[in-house]
């Protein structure tokens, strides 16, 4: 007897937002495998909070950004104990990309959310849990570091 499949909003969200969120997470982490892992965890969190989430796509993006932040903290702890080997994906020569990896989480996230997602300061501030002025400062300082890295 065939199983009946009824449309599930989570599936629709997956179809629409999984790949864009993996792209965002990749830009935030610089690691393909981690990016997928973070987004998959975010989908699980969205599923668990579905009844409370008034805007599931927005909730998903928050979950991804928070997931990246948590991953960053764990990674920093691991790096303190044992330096991680370089990710093969970052071995390709790209000074700006390499420089992006070295930015603190808030600066990097602010730059990605502004220049990739095209979000306004207010929305970025909500996502990062800080004030709009902090967002502007983070972007300014992050860009300054990137400029410094790529200048001959």
């Amino acid at each position, binding site marked *: 007897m065939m199983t*009946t499949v009824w449309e599930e909003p989570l599936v629709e969200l997956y179809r629409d937002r999984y790949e864009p969120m993996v792209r965002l997470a990749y830009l935030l982490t610089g690691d393909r495998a981690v990016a997928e892992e973070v987004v998959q965890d975010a989908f699980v969190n969205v*599923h668990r909070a579905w009844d409370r989430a008034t805007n*599931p796509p927005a909730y998903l993006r928050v979950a991804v950004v928070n997931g990246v932040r948590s991953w960053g903290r764990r990674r920093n702890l691991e790096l303190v104990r044992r330096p991680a080997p370089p990710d093969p994906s970052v071995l390709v020569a790209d000074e700006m990309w390499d420089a992006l990896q070295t930015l603190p989480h808030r600066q990097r996230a602010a730059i990605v959310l502004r220049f990739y997602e095209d979000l306004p300061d207010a929305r970025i501030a909500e996502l990062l849990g800080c004030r709009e002025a902090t967002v502007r400062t983070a972007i300014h300082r992050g860009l300054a570091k990137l400029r410094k890295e790529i200048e001959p």
Partner: protein
Amino acid sequence: MTIEDDVRTMLRRRADEAHVSDDAWERIAARLEERPPRQLGRAVAAVAAAAAAFVAGVLVWPEPARQVVVPPAASTTVPVDLPPHLWAGEPGQNPAEVGMSYLRDRLGPGSRAVTGRPTGPDTEVGRFVSGSALTELFFRQVRDRWLLVAVTSDLVPIHGPRLVDGVVEGTVVAEAAGRLTLNGRVHQVRPRDRIEVRTAADGDRGRLLAVLELEDGAVALSELWIDERDDPATPDGGLVAVWPATDAEGIEALQAQADSGERPDLLDPRAVAGAFLTEVLAGSADFGVQDLRQGDASSGEVPYALADGADGTVLVRRSGGEGSIWYVVGATSASLEIAELRREETHLVADVRSSMSGTLQWTGAPPVAVRSGEIVSIGRPDTPVGSYPVVVRLVDDGSTRAVVAELSRT
């Protein structure tokens, strides 16, 4: 170009390097399974089934999944002759739509999903997962409509539902802390709290609705329809027949109808056996019944044969002599036997021995495949009523090959 332009270009180029795995959804589904709803017993399997359904819908099914169109919360066109139910769908609606409409009415607006599968030719079980909680919805098809006849969650079971002298009574046990709304009254509950409920019935019928909102925001609910005349049984027993009623009061009511000339068919044991088979087989097999083989004055057997050659016997009884109605107390088959019937914590489980291969079907239970000579277990939630007839069919290639029925002995 400015540094901002350079950054934009670099980010777009790098974003294209992101990798999406072919098995991405399966991995999400697996993670959902790692965090199962807090339904006891079959929770993990239920989530796995839902996850598998999602996978099928996303990755395998060639046709796009259907959109659920949530109908208006209330229907004004439900015929009055439908059997008791909690919620009736509009003609043509599938159980998912009926379930979604019901949940919207009971819980208010919100994004929810109901997944499910058929359990028989006219029955389906739906599953509503809310965060960590699982609720099962039992549907029955009557003519062109799907009716929601019971809703249960092991997180908020209703024990001992009964209707006495116009009052609906029962006990609700909260299996988790949270906010319990019981027929409109709110209670803050801790795990294992027991709440007694007494509420006025609507004539000879009543409902018990328990909604548990857990501290993590998940929602579980149970709702039962209790009918003074047709309630199949209570945990206290009183189960006397498999069909056309199941308790003494139901039999008495039918006797009254026979006495008034409304149901002369119930005075003919062969007709009673035939009507029982018609309902149980639901068009899945042609059959022929033979004459009654009377045992004593109030009991006997009606042999029957299915179109494919399998045969069996319907056991009938009547409570008095001439003029008493006949009712079915069981059905046997040479091919199918209930070896043991036992009550587990949340389920009634039948161990069934079969001499033919096929699929065992029991209303409210997931179908179970069986091979010739095997004994397999099939179980259904025991929450809606504490005791009820057990009718199991063996189905192969869409046709019923054997039927076994008996009263619950647990």
